[in-house]
Every structure is written in structure tokens, then in C-alpha cells.
């Protein structure tokens, strides 16, 4: 379609030019400025800013909690996608719509309501706190709210693949004597794997950057429940801009790096499709 269109359809250079201009001004140049500011620090100062015990605890909590939440989301997402595609039951449409709520609900609202639900007097805390589950102002609470925030991603990446799955592959497996579980484990799951990785990656990326939801439920105690974005805000409030930028650069590099890794896994896992 390429060159024919460019000669006939108008607006190619105009729209492309504007897109690149807007993208540069709003996204690329500001991110570059962030790296530039960090480069004004000497290596020694940079390391001192980003490699404190408090910062290390924050990184491992940020990435650990996002990872745990994304893993749970893979399981929950697979379950929800399966049920929504394969089964019929009353109020299915409602369930389907509610899956998207975390995309539309402001994260501050999510954080606010999750913190209120899991305190000892909250609706769920009343039951769970006596059982020993503390869902507010703990690390478990952070993972819980990140599960909420990342919920739609796996469902929405797996759902279309499951819908388009050729029923004959399952026929073939069944006719060869495979049980339902064997068919799922050895036929369906490998086909869904690339979509699961994509969904995992999206949920993980969202969890790493999340601030609004976490700030309400975590209690923000250094070393215990302080995530990296909260640490950046703390540095900013001390007017330590360079240190804040240094931590931001580390966070940016780590999240770009992990996204790249997830992308590679995704390509590797779908290598048979091409």
C-alpha cells in the first residue's frame, strides 16, 4: 500500500511531521532532559544518590511487588478470560465490563478505597484482620492494589487469542485420546503463552510506575513500605533535585530494561508462529 498511497492520499508529510514534532516536544526531549540533568552529577555523587540502603530497599520493593502482582494477574487473567470466552452464565456482560474498571478508575480512588477496605474496621478487614491478613499499610496491601490496577491487561490480551483458537486443534487432541487437562496443558497453554507474556509485561510495567494507588495503602515507611516513586517525591520535597533525578534515571533504565527483556521473551515464545 505504501508508495501508491503517498502519491495519492494527502497529508502524509503534514501528519507525520506534526506527530514527530509533538512526540519530541512532549515526550522525547523531556526524557532526554532527565538524563542530561542526571549526567551533571559526578559518578561518585550519582552512586551515592541512587545506591543508599533506603533506595535499594525501595527498588526491590517496587520491582518485587510489581512482579508478584503481575504473576497473580497472569493466573487471574487466564481464569477470567477462560470463563468469559468459554462459558455462558447470567450477568456475564456485567462481569466482562467490570474487568475494565481499573483502566478507567483513577488510581487515587483505587488506593483510597483499598486502604479503607482492609483496615480492621473496613468491610474486608473485619474478616481478614482477625485471620491474620493485614491488607492496609503493609507490603501485602501494595501487592493487592497493584493486582487491581493490572487486572485488565492479561484478560484483554488473552481473550482475543482464546476466541480465535481453532476448535479443531482441541478436536485433534481429544481424538488422539488426550484428557481435557492434557489438552489444556499441552495444546492450549502453549498457544496462549505469548499473550500471557504480553499481558504480564503490561501489568508489570504499570505496577512498577504506579504511585497514586500505592501512596494511599502503603503508609510510606522507609525500608518497609516505601516504593521508588515515593522516594523520588521525598527527595523533591527536600529540594534535592539532582538526587531525585538520579533515582528517576535508575527507575527509567530498570523499567525500559525489563520491558525489553519481556519483549524478547515474547518474541522467543512466539517464534513458531512465523
Amino acid at each position, binding site marked *: *500500500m*505504501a*508508495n501508491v*498511497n503517498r502519491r*495519492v492520499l*494527502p*497529508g*502524509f508529510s*503534514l501528519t*507525520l511531521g*506534526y*506527530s514527530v514534532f509533538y*512526540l519530541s516536544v*512532549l*515526550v522525547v526531549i*523531556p*526524557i532526554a*532532559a*532527565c538524563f542530561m540533568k542526571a549526567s551533571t552529577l559526578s559518578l561518585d555523587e550519582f552512586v551515592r544518590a541512587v545506591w543508599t540502603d533506603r533506595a535499594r530497599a525501595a527498588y526491590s520493593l517496587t520491582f518485587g511487588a510489581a512482579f508478584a502482582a503481575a504473576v497473580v494477574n497472569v493466573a487471574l487473567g487466564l481464569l477470567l478470560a477462560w*470463563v468469559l470466552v*468459554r*462459558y455462558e*452464565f447470567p450477568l456475564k456482560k456485567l*462481569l466482562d*465490563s467490570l474487568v*475494565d*474498571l*481499573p483502566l*478507567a*478508575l*483513577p488510581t*487515587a*480512588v*483505587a488506593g*483510597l*478505597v483499598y486502604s479503607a*477496605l482492609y483496615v480492621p474496621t*473496613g468491610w*474486608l478487614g473485619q474478616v481478614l484482620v482477625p485471620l491474620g491478613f493485614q491488607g492496609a499499610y503493609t507490603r501485602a496491601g501494595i501487592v493487592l492494589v497493584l493486582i*487491581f490496577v493490572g*487486572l485488565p491487561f492479561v484478560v484483554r490480551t488473552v481473550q482475543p487469542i482464546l476466541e480465535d483458537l481453532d*476448535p479443531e486443534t*482441541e478436536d485433534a*487432541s481429544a481424538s488422539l485420546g488426550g484428557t*481435557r487437562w492434557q489438552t489444556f496443558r499441552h495444546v492450549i497453554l502453549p498457544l496462549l503463552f505469548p499473550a500471557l507474556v504480553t499481558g504480564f509485561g503490561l501489568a508489570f*510495567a504499570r505496577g512498577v*510506575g*504506579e*504511585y*497514586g494507588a500505592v*501512596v494511599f495503602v502503603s503508609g510510606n515507611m522507609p525500608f518497609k513500605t516505601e516504593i521508588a*516513586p515515593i522516594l*523520588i*517525591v521525598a527527595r*523533591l520535597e527536600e529540594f534535592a*533535585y539532582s538526587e*531525585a*533525578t538520579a533515582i*528517576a534515571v535508575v527507575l527509567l533504565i530498570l*523499567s525500559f530494561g525489563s520491558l525489553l527483556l519481556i519483549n524478547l521473551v515474547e518474541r522467543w515464545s512466539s517464534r513458531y508462529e512465523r
Partner: protein
Amino acid sequence: MSAEGTLARRSQNDATWVRVTLTTAAVLVIGVLVLIPLVNVFAQALSEGVGVYWDNLFNDHDTLAAIKLTMVVAPTALMLNLVFGVAAAWAIAKFNFPGRTLLTALIDLPFSVSPVVAGLIFVLIFGLQGYLGPFLRRDGYSAMPYLLSLLAVAVYVLMYLGLRPINPVERSGWWNHPWLATIAGGALVFLVTFAPQIYFEMWPKDASLKIIFATPGLILATAFVTFPFVARELIPVMEAIGVEEELAAVSLGANGWQVFWQITVPNIKWGLIYGIILCNARAMGEFGAVFVVSGHIAGLTDTMPLRIEKLFQEYNLPGSFAVASLLTLVALLTLLARVGVDRAEAARVKSAAEGTNELRS
């Protein structure tokens, strides 16, 4: 597909106990993770009665100011991203060019940047100690005539290229000299809009222009975070529709403007509407990025999510939940719009398919 879909395949049938267990589990997951929080927002907001709820929202000066500010910030950021989203989708979906994949990947970049970092980078540029800080503080408004005139030039170029006949036979006079018309006309437009601003001294001289800790910063940060939404919604829709109808319109002598408004917009209407609604919901609810650039001046730079946080810190939970309930309503309307748009889109595809069948028979 539909005949096979409704016909229950034996090999795809799970045992009843599996079906019941999995369905129950799914309902429980959504119930605990989504439905209970959703109901809880309204229960908490109304916990002290409707009167208190009303007072919390509309008799609290700072909350009212936050609602008004959100009504300014979110639509402005939305407009910026809407123009970009349509332009980017047009370039990416209708044409093939080197770097197309890179551009598509770069559009998603803000998704992998933490909102706090997004706010921080604008502080680094426009803040007092930022790269442009000293200039903005000394004489920030002196940039305004240039910006405004450049905007006028952009509108002029868009009009010229959009209205220019595509068929070379129909072009005459100015339409035959696109470069001359763009450059000379652009310069003229620039002068005509620039001169009066200087002559009438429209902008304050030697005054500090505040971007960070003020509304422009809030708009920039919000636009950054909600940047991909419209484009991402439109690109697959435009790609699926293809270019045949546009090419047909061009061959019938339509100009770019007519092609866009009469062919493209009706085709992508539902994707566009949903993109706008989703982008708006995210813009209204953005927290991390605006948290960093706002400065938290009550009644001035607090948006609704920031107001929620402030009331939460002040232990005013009913007030906090009252503001949250408004944003939750926006989220629910967004979900409703998704359902409506999906239905309308299905109907459109169906009628289009019937149309082609009729033509064929």
C-alpha cells in the same frame, strides 16, 4: 464462525464441576477486587447522609475549586492528545514509511514511565532551577507572541494543504505552488499575528511566567501521561478499515479536508469517541504526575485526585470519598460508553457486510 460457535463442541466442553468452580472463582475475583471497592466508594461517601455528602462537594470552597480546575486541565490535555492521536493514526495506519515501527513504539513510551518521573521531568525543564527556569522567571511572557503566531501559521498550513485539490488538473494559481504558498503565506500569517501582539503590548513585560506549580504544568504533565490513549485506540481501527474509501473519494475529486471529514471521521467515529472518553477519564484521574508539578496550593493548583489525597491526610474520609465518588461515576460512564461503542461498532460492521452482500447478489 457463528454456526460453529453456537454449536457446542464436545472437545471444548469442560466437565460441569470444572465449569461451576471456575465460574464461581471468576465471580469471586471480580466481586472482591472490583465490585466491593466500587460499592464501598459510594457507601463511604454517603456514610454521614446525603446532606453531608452535598456539603462536602459543593459547600467546600477548595473542593469546588479542585472540580473546576480538573474541568480545565483534563479537556485541554485531551484536545492536545486528540489532535496528535488523529494525526499519528493517519500517518501510521494509511502509509508505510521507514521508522513506522519505531514511531509506534515511541507512542507507547509514556506507559513505561512512572507518572512521578513524568512530573519530575517537567519540573527539570520548567521549574525554578530547571533548564528554562531562569528565562521564564525573568521574562517568560516574551515567548508568548512567538508561540501564538506559530500556532496561527500551523492552522494556515493545515488549511492550505487540506483544501488544495488533489487532482493536478483542478489546481490553478496558488494551488500549484505548495512550497511558495506555505513559506510566503506562512511568513505573512506570522507577521500579521505577531505585529499586533507587540504593538498593543498584549503580554506583560519582564514578568515571571509560571508553568510549574500552576495550571500549564498540570496540563503538560496530564498530557504526557495520557498521551498514547487516543492514538492507540485509533491506529487499529484505521488499519482495519484500510484506504479504499479514501482513494475512491480522491478519485472523485475530493480535497484532503473533504476526505477526512466525510470519509475518515464517519468510519472511525466510534473508536474516536471511545478514545476521547477513555483519555478524558484518565486525564481527570491522573495523580502521580500532577502531584509532582502542582505544588499543592489549596484552591489554586489542587485537581480532584489531589484534593482526595489532601482530605485523606486531614482524616476527612467522608469528604475524600465524596470527591472520589464523582471520579468513580466518570469511570462508570466510561465503562458504559465502551459497551455502547462496541454495540454500535458491531452494528456498523454488520450493516456494512450486508451492504456488500447486497451489492454482490
